[in-house]
Each structure stands twice: as C-alpha cells, then as structure tokens.
C-alpha cells in the first residue's frame, strides 16, 4: 500500500523557451508581469519552472487560459518537443510488459535520453490524445491500421492479434467494429477523438495525456467521451493528466488540479478546493467567470 505514495513521475523545473532565450527570460516573465514574452530578447517562455509530482492511478487536471502553457507541459512530457531545461524522473520500473524495452532507471533524467530511448519509453508506457485528431491519427489509414501502428511500435508482430486488439478497443470506445477498416477522415469529430483514445490505450499505457479531449465536441458526445474516460480510468487504474479549459470537465474527472498562467503554475491543490476556495487572483477570476 505504501508504494502508492511513490510518484510515478516527478517533474522539476520543466521549461520550454521559443526563440534564442537569454539568462533573464525567466526573471521577467510570468503571471506577475502578465506576459510570457521576455522584454530583453523577445523569446517566448511557453512554460517555465513547472514542477509537480504525478501519483499512480490519479487524475491530475491542468487548467488555464489559452496560451498559458498547458499543452506545452503535456507535450514536453510526451517528448513531442525538446525542453529548454528541467528534469523528469519516471519511477515505475516494474511496468514493462515487453522485455525488449529497456526502461530508464529511476534516477535517470528522461530529458537526457536519446531519441530512440524516448520513443521506446513513449511506446511502452505513455499514451496521448491530442486536441486536434490530425496530430494523433493518420487520416488516410484505416482506424485499425492506426491502432496497429502503435501495437507494432510496442513490439507486436501478429496481425491477427493486432486486428483483435483493435476491434476490442474500438468496441470499448463505442465505435462500430464494422468500421475498423475505414479511415478516420470518414469519421465525425467525436469518433476521431474516440479512435485516438483507442489508439492511445492500445499499448496499455501507464500514463495517459488528454489534451483538450472534449473541446469542440457537441455536448452529448462530450458526455459520452467523459464517461468513457472515467470508466477506462477506473478499469485500468490509469494515471491521467487532463488538460482542459473547461472547469466542468476538470471538476468531474480530476482529483488534483494545477492552474497555469503565462507559462507558470500559479496554484495547485485538490480540485474541489481550487474550484470552491481559489487563492490566486487569476484562479478566482477563472472560477468566477464560469457559466
């Protein structure tokens, strides 16, 4: 039971700067300056000195206005971008289902891994659902093919198994199995999002990143996707990071929340506390602006 307290991911001072950057970038940006553009060199601090711990089977929310760096944080964690600084430690060495994949040591900073190791870790342990399905799916390849791509990356080579697994996952995400061979470009936005979820779950990830997964979906589909995520989370004990600017989504899905503004974390705490007793001026504004 005590191992529950060992975080699965520890993030220290994660920083991403677009542009050259100068030594004073981090000093002159942030919520107190109301900007994330460095006044000395013009570089944009997309996220600066973000530190937090992620515990097993928890759902962590990240909220904030657009451009506050929410997506940057999860995309750095998914190794989509190279970071400008910081450390990430992955503590769950016991999770490797695939003996071919060598997971990093717990004291090894993930940001120093080479691209091959990062890719291996991503395919063995991480899952991502992008806000824009075009980033996560190949629109012209069949849905089954999209899911199989990840399975191949994770080491599966048996086409029957891959098809079976794809069909299972599509059924789980409430997409008719008959449409397994249809490409996502034929699907509606909500269905594309669910194919993405199926794809992200195909390798049994330890950590799942959901980047604005319900934004742009109509309300009934949104409710269905939320319900699905909640079910899958409790069924597979997934650790999830939910990025959203919809406070309703955050309230219903997450247990802890971080609030970001101008690339920095301004407040973090239990979700109900953040929403009902916000301390930071920006969080108060955000919560009081909710419809």
């Amino acid at each position, binding site marked *: 039971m005590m191992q529950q307290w060992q975080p699965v991911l520890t993030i220290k001072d994660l920083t991403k700067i677009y542009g050259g950057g100068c030594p004073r970038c981090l000093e002159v940006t942030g919520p107190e300056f109301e900007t994330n553009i460095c006044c000395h060199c013009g570089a944009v601090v997309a996220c600066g000195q973000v530190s937090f711990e992620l515990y097993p089977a928890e759902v962590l929310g990240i909220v904030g206005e657009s451009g506050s760096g929410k997506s940057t944080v999860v995309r750095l964690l998914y190794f989509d971008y190279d970071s400008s600084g910081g450390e990430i430690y992955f503590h769950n060495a016991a999770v490797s289902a695939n003996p071919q994949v060598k997971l990093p040591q717990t004291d090894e900073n993930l940001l120093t891994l080479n691209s091959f190791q990062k890719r291996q870790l991503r395919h063995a342990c991480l899952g991502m659902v992008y806000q824009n399905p075009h980033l996560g799916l190949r629109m012209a390849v069949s849905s089954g093919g999209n899911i199989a791509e990840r399975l191949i990356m994770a080491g599966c080579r048996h086409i029957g198994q891959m098809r079976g697994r794809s069909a299972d996952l599509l059924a789980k995400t409430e997409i008719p199995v008959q449409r397994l061979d249809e490409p996502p470009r034929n699907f509606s936005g909500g269905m594309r999002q669910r194919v993405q979820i199926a794809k992200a779950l195909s390798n049994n990830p330890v950590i799942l990143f959901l980047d604005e997964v319900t934004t742009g979906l109509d309300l009934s589909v949104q*409710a*269905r996707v*939320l*319900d699905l995520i909640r079910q899958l989370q*409790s069924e597979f004990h997934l650790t999830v990071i939910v990025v959203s600017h919809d406070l309703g989504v955050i309230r219903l899905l997450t247990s802890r929340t971080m609030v970001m503004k101008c690339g920095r974390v301004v407040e973090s705490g239990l979700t109900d*506390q953040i929403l*009902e*007793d916000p301390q930071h001026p920006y969080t*108060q504004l955000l919560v009081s602006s909710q419809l």
Partner: protein
Amino acid sequence: MLEIEQLSKTFHIHSLGRKRIQALEDVSFQVAAGEFWGVAGPSGIGKSTLLKCIYRTYLSSGGRIWYDSRRWGRIDLARAAHQVILEVRQTEIGYVSQFLQVLPRVTALDLVAEPLLLKNGLSTGEARKIAAGFLERLQIPSNLFEAYPVTFSGGEQQRLNLARAVIWKPRLLLLDEPTASLDPQSIAIVVDILKQLKEQGTTLIGISHHDDLMQAIIDRVYALSQEN
C-alpha cells in the same frame, strides 16, 4: 475522534481589492467517536464553511483540525498532504453536498454503486444489487434506476446524493443540509438511515435547523454565532 482548535477562515476576494470576509473565527469543539453533532446558526453564519474546512474543500486560515485516522493516526486535516486527504476521503470521510454534481451520462444505479466498487472493492453485480436495495429504501421509483439523474426532481437528486455518501459506511460523515429540499416523509426515511448508520458506529456532523426531524438523533449541537 475529531478535535477542532481555534479554527478560523477568511476569504480574500482579489477582484474586490482583496476584500476580506471573515467567515469563521475561533471555532473549537471536540467530537467523540459515534456522536452526532449538529451545527446550528442563522443563514450565512458559516455552517457550510465549517464543514467544508473539515473536508478540506476550503483551506483553513488558522487553527487545527485534528482527526484520528485509522491508517494515519492523528492528522491535521487543515494541513495534511493532498495524497493523505484524498486517501482519507476515499476510505474514511464522506461528505454530502447540497447539490448533486456527477457525470451526465451515468445512470442512477451506477452512480450509487460506484463508491462500493471503488472503496469496498465489490464486484459490479453485487454493488448494483446493494445499490438497488438502497435506492428502493430511499423510495426512488425503480423505473428511474436506469435513468440519468439530470432528469430527476430536486428531492430525488438529493436522496441520490445521500445514497452515494452513505452506502459505503464512512467512518465520519459530514452532512451539508441533506434534507433541505425533501418532503417530511422523505426526511423521515433519511433520518432513519442516518440513525442506522450511527448505530453502526459512524460519527456524524450535520447542519441542522431547529424544526428539523434530525433533532431526534442529534446528540450535541454546536451553535455558531456572530462572535465566531
């Protein structure tokens, strides 16, 4: 079991020039295991604030809330780590809010069965069976079991909310006006359920009103007044 020492809570509203609102000041009382405490006082005096401070939905501004946890020993709920609070909420402390806030597309039966699955580790079938029995006892019509709670009346939603908190038999239960929009008959059922829960050893703290049927099972009352 619960010892509140000089608890105070001040809200700072930044958009109004850091306006201070003193909601609680110097609240102290001790709750022994198995007791049912009522919190009384006029509207706006801070009754809900007190319960929310205990549940850590609000961050206390001062004072301590000592709780004898089964697993963690004596902890200060006002300052304990997030993970400890989440674990205690998962296994020991329940909270009945004034309003039902749940995922929109989950049926009433699944909502009530959910805590049993998560906290008591029962199988889906067993949990649904117990949940159905419980909903029946709360006189929720059986044709609503598979309906979505958004479509329920206010009273039905509130009973559902109570069912979700009571079904897993928490060690400490905080009740934020659980009978506010119920008719006398439903209140009698709720009171009966709380009475049974108390007999099984749960400690309760609830917001009560003088004319309330709950008075019958409340052991002691903490009256909030302007001074605190």
